[in-house]
């Protein structure tokens, strides 16, 4: 039907063109131009779709342990539970925070037969609240806001839907039906620091932060403390892609590569990143430096087990990924979905750390297997409270 409409409009355009007595030549150009721009837009739209699908395919299952089959419903219920995930700015395909949340969401949808919806916000805070509300009105049972920026919107929307479960990652909110899912980044980063300090040949390591603001300082301070705990004489270089309020630093591979190259050239042989998608640039830099100088340098990943996550997307970078500080946002979201299914969901803040297993250092690739004992001894000291990694700058 709309094709016919389109053709009619097209013919009309041509008629108007003639009525105006634009020369035949010009009206042809006009039409050609419009068809061409249509073609361009159509192509652009198409490839975008493909990109998103690709990323979805690449979701590594490795970040989640084999799911318990307990809650998988044998026969589909009449009204399946609904789960709605509102992503942070950057959206799907950031190979980081959002993809991680999506992995947990996808798993929950698959395992529990939930009806899933995920939304991406436009810029501007008002839209976050709108999307949460949209999810709530659609009758979803669990609504997740991915990222600390959702706190104000949660306070605003959640009280209006007391029977709906809400969850926010990296943040807390006041209403009783909101679960605040926090992570102790300093503990995991401390272990990353220990690994880097034990593995460095040059006594020089680096830290690459995405955006210079207190959340990332938790990673930075934990890492520094870990390095210093092993050997106080190791030099630590620190670099950030951007300074808040510019949050572009979480998705800027070029800048990540630039900073990492500078740090490797200044003598670092291991860099730990807490920079989201920017970190991919660091792994590229590691490959480039290793190949040009002949001596191998490393990167330590974050959030995902990047040995698999980056390794699957870009296999040539896999051998430069020493380890990863895994932050199981996916597991937290999966658990929130499970609790919703079982009717045991509770609000309030929960903190994941080394003890709960929501934060851990990955041994994928086997590059740090030889120092596992030393790492484990630090891990036990942290869990027993003997060492408390600092989470803020002094």
């Amino acid at each position, binding site marked *: 039907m709309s094709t016919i409409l389109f053709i009619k409009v097209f013919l009309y355009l041509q008629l108007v063109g003639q009525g105006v007595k634009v020369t035949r030549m010009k009206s042809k150009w006009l039409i050609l131009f419009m068809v061409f721009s249509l073609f361009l837009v159509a192509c652009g739209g198409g490839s975008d779709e493909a990109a998103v699908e690709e990323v979805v395919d690449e979701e590594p299952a490795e970040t989640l342990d084999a799911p318990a089959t307990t809650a998988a419903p044998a026969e589909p219920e009449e009204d399946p539970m609904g789960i709605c995930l509102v992503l942070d700015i950057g959206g799907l395909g950031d190979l980081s925070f959002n993809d991680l949340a999506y992995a947990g969401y996808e798993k929950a949808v698959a395992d529990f037969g939930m009806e899933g919806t995920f*939304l991406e916000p436009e810029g501007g*805070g008002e839209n976050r609240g709108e999307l949460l509300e949209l999810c709530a009105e659609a009758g979803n049972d669990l609504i997740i806001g991915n990222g600390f920026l959702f706190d104000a919107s949660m306070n605003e929307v959640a009280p209006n839907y007391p029977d709906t479960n809400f969850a926010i990652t990296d943040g807390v909110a006041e209403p009783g039906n909101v679960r605040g899912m926090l992570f102790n980044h300093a503990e995991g980063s401390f272990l990353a620091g220990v690994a880097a300090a034990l593995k460095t040949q040059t006594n020089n390591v680096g830290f690459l932060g995405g955006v210079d603001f207190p959340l990332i300082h938790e990673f930075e301070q934990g890492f520094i403390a870990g390095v210093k705990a092993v050997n106080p004489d190791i030099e630590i270089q620190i670099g950030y892609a951007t300074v808040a309020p510019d949050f572009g630093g979480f998705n800027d591979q070029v800048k990540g590569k630039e900073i990492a190259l500078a740090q490797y050239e200044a003598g670092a042989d291991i860099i730990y990143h807490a920079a989201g998608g920017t970190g991919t640039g660091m792994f590229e830099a590691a490959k480039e430096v290793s190949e040009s100088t002949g001596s191998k340098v490393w990167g330590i990943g974050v959030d995902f087990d990047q040995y698999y996550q980056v390794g699957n997307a870009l296999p040539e970078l896999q051998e430069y990924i020493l380890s990863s500080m895994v932050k199981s946002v996916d597991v937290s979201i999966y658990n929130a979905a499970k609790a919703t299914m079982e009717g045991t969901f509770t609000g309030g803040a929960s903190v994941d750390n080394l003890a709960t297993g929501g934060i851990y250092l990955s041994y994928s690739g086997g590059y740090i297997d030889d120092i596992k004992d030393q790492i484990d001894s630090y891990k036990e000291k942290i869990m027993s409270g003997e060492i408390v990694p600092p989470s803020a700058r002094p």
Partner: protein
Amino acid sequence: MKMRFRLVSVSAPIIALTISFGLSSLILLIIGKDPYETFKIMFEYGIRGKSIVSIINRSIPLYISAIAVAVGFKMGLFNIGVEGQYLMGSLVAAYIGAQFSIITPLHILFIIIVAVATSSLWAAIAGYLKVEKGIHEVISTIMLNYIGTGLIAYSLTTIFDEPNSNYDLPRTKELPETGKMPPLNKFFNIEDLQDLHGFLVIAVLVGIFYYWLVWKTTLGFDLRITGSNPIAAKFSGINPNKLVVIAMITSGGFAGLVGLGPLLSYFHRYTIDFPTGLGFAGIGVALLGRNHPFGMAVGALLFAFLQRSAQILDLNDVPKEIEQMMQAFILLIVVVFYEVIRRFIVKQQVKDASKRSDE
């Protein structure tokens, strides 16, 4: 004769709208979605009570931004810097406005004055550079946008920052109760819906003021005459340099109001979440509305409608980016059509003139 021209002019946006719907339908078909269903869902969602309030709230800053751009357009001046101007104005107004408390009308008036003054000062730099140094305003305003963004980032994290517990995200102190604009819900008897921004009143006043300024004052006449024929304007005794500076300051002054709708009615402080991009969106609305106060109001409402109603699409497995494409189609086609129509009118006028001379 005149009537016919006007009819043709008005038909342009309608035709553009129809074509862009057609093109969007085609793209929906290509990606395997039903266009009729899609538009139906959008429309049904877009006319719900909450949506209408949201649409009006969204259109307020869009409309004011369009007016800021249009003031420049009227004299052939391209103020691409509305973006930086309104962000600067909003930040300074949010900071100063939060420092004290007086009765609400005075407090809001004060915040408005601060925002307008800051933004026009920022815009005046571009005017000065054009007049004194011959730097084209497109270049200077784009550069000033970057400088403004940097200045905002710096000052928001240092002098204007209020330490807080949410990862110490950069933000200013919250406006006191007296600095918050009361919503209009009581007035329209829609208290069950979300807040209808009180800044709507100001937006309407700004529209009227813009009309009066451009069509009923000497300054407006000078602006329009310079826009349509700069050489004739110069010889009629208009000082183009002075006019550039005045136009830039006026445009910047309107820009100062853009961010105040969201600031006074929703955010009550400047945060990293503060809406950006309104300055650029305003250029599109001004083009669509042909710099006319009524046309721009329709344009702002239309874009706001598309933005809001597209929210529902993701819930129905249609990529909501289709809405951005529609906006782009509308703009592209409307620009082409205005040009086609302009030529048509010129041709007709020539024909009429020759007919008259023949008689």
